[in-house]
């Protein structure tokens, strides 16, 4: 079984997941992203016409504003033509199969698809069925992966912490349903972070999560002790009551990030969140807006990382 993300030269053909991505490619993405960031005066993103004459299709089977917008900005800063397609309710409700949709999009001669889909494995499926010249970037598939989010998180961590080999990182919240968490875990372990923790009640952790190379904590105070980075996860509304959790209030009390709980972490801890945040449910406003929060930097870096991925894909050998 060949790695479906790499071409026969071992170059990045599609970005589908951070799992199994060679560390050299991960570093190359981060290094390239750094060239797009101007740190001289605040954080500015430079333009670079590397995708002139190329077309990028944002194909979203699931709603998203933030991710789609940052991909759009990134593509435009690279001078690509951008087409946004919200397939969400349109063609699938008319009975068109995913294969038909993919075939139709290929016929429109795109160079790159940015795909979000509600099913785990959808990006792999699409990558397998597109014409050979087309690159697929996974912008989130079900619970499986969200590699650009994880890579921008790695970029943010490297920006503030410089190195990975001496870090203790905690991921807090609904790991079970989170594609962000899965991609973060494999990115962190790939980059050599020696200790990755997950903190959540048992109902929000998948079976054998420890096999992914993480330490499991159910007690947040213990889990946050001496960590350098806290990665918060979003709690979907539909999980807040029912069989997984009794209430949002109880969740906030035990797993919401407050200043008091954060005090267990290292003094210079950074707090991150993929957004959109549920203030008062998974994170207290005083932390989200506090001195340790780098949440807005993540958004800015997200553009640079997506520019890096797109320009790398555009430059691979045919």
């Amino acid at each position: 079984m060949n790695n479906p993300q790499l071409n026969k030269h071992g170059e990045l053909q599609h970005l589908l997941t951070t799992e199994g991505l060679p560390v050299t490619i991960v570093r190359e993405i981060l290094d390239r992203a750094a060239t797009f960031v101007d740190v001289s005066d605040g954080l500015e993103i430079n333009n670079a016409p590397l995708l002139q004459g190329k077309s990028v299709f944002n194909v979203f089977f699931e709603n998203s504003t933030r991710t789609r917008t940052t991909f759009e900005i990134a593509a435009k800063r690279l001078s690509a033509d951008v087409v946004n397609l919200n397939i969400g309710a349109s063609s699938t409700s008319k009975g068109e199969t995913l294969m038909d949709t993919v075939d139709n999009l290929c016929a429109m001669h795109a160079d790159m698809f940015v795909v979000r889909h509600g099913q785990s494995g959808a990006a792999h499926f699409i990558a397998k069925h597109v014409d050979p010249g087309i690159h697929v970037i996974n912008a989130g598939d079900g619970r499986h992966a969200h590699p650009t989010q994880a890579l921008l998180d790695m970029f943010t961590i490297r920006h503030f912490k410089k190195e990975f080999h001496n870090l203790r990182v905690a991921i807090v919240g609904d790991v079970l349903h989170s594609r962000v968490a899965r991609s973060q875990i494999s990115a962190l372990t790939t980059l050599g972070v020696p200790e990755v923790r997950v903190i959540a009640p048992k109902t929000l952790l998948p079976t054998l999560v420890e096999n992914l190379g993480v330490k499991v904590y159910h007690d947040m105070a213990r889990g946050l002790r001496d960590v350098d980075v806290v990665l918060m996860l979003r709690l979907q509304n539909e999980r807040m009551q029912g069989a997984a959790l009794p209430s949002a209030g109880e969740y906030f009390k035990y797993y919401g990030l407050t200043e008091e709980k954060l005090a267990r972490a290292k003094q210079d801890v950074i707090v991150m969140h993929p957004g959109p945040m549920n203030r008062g449910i998974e994170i207290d406003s005083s932390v989200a807006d506090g001195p340790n929060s780098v949440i807005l930097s993540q958004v800015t870096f997200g553009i640079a990382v997506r520019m890096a991925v797109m320009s790398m894909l555009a430059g691979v050998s045919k």
Partner: protein
Amino acid sequence: MNIHIRGGRLIDPKNNIDEICDLFIMADKIAAIGVAPQGFVTKLVIDAHGLIVAPGLIDLAARLREPGYEYMATLETEMVAAVAGGVTSLACPPDTDPPLDEPGLVEMLKHRARILNQANVYPVGALTMGLKGHELTEMAELVDAGCIAFSQADAPLTDTRVLMRAMQYAATFGLSVWLRPQDSFLAKNGVAHDGEVATRCGLPAIPVCAETIALSTMLALAQETGVKLHICRISSAAGVEMVRSAKQQGLPVTCDVSMNHVHLSEMDIGYFDPNCHLSPPLRSMRDRAALRAGLLDGTIDAICSNHAPVDDDAKQLPFAEAEAGATGLELLLPLILKWAREEKLELSEALAKATLRPAQVLSLDVGHLSIGANADVCIFDPDMYWKVVPGALKSQGKNTPFTGHEVQGRVRYTLVNGQLVYQT
């Protein structure tokens, strides 16, 4: 027609035969072994040198998709697939549309199968009306129409009172109840084994306890009602252990496993291969080892193909959306031979899992080559390699996890009731 099968290696697990000798068929029956009966006038000679002559295979789970799902498969295509796979008798689950819950439907199915004159079809009747789990079907009438057992197929029966009544009623008439153990609440929306791979891939999962909880209910009710219970498609180590101890306690329970689960595990899902979306889900390597151990010690009586042809439109989708199931009739023999080689089993012992043992589950006098038995015979080349190419399969279902695999063992001739129905 008088047929002389010459020079083959005859293997009959029931009669402990494994030697090179001739087989004579007369008036649809096995007439003699070794020496031709007096006055035998040969009409057809089949040269079986270098081939194995065995009882036709019996498949305990082959979906023919009729009535109702003809876009997935038809009787015409699947019966050809059966005999091409050396399968001469098959039990078909009742999950058609409408389900096999009325004698008329069963009679129609039997009639259609009889006209096609290929494999013998043994319908499994619906245990409850519409497989909905509320009202019992007319089981005695359905038996008269041709049903050999009663089942819910993969449909849940959550009301334990109805399940107990169904078992009591079946036991009244000495009928068998075939059940697939899966708790519908724990399995809800699940598409893969709750383990390492589902966790890594973010696939909604089905825990092993979905099987063991359902199994413990079934075994307790079987004990209570005395019904003959057949457990379909066991998938987990814990499940095998429960069946083992039930058998040790003397419960009249039998059990089968799908050939896919004998060979594959969750690891084969790889990069979301929809061909590995099966029901029950492929479980861990440890579970697979336990299934194999269960086959060896007799806890698991039979290997079935769990043939479930699916159309391409329903299969070419992201893993969870793809319809569960795989084509299997044509792969049953090579996969049993593969299992036999891997476990270093005598061929006779291995073939028993698809001949003698399933016949015992069915309580039918088939699956052997005794003098006077119906001449259902499978003649195959045990050494011939062939590559599984979807387009070359006879079944209308082209999806199988074994696509592209080189398998060993090819059926050359199939005889059903003394008629040569397939040769290549």
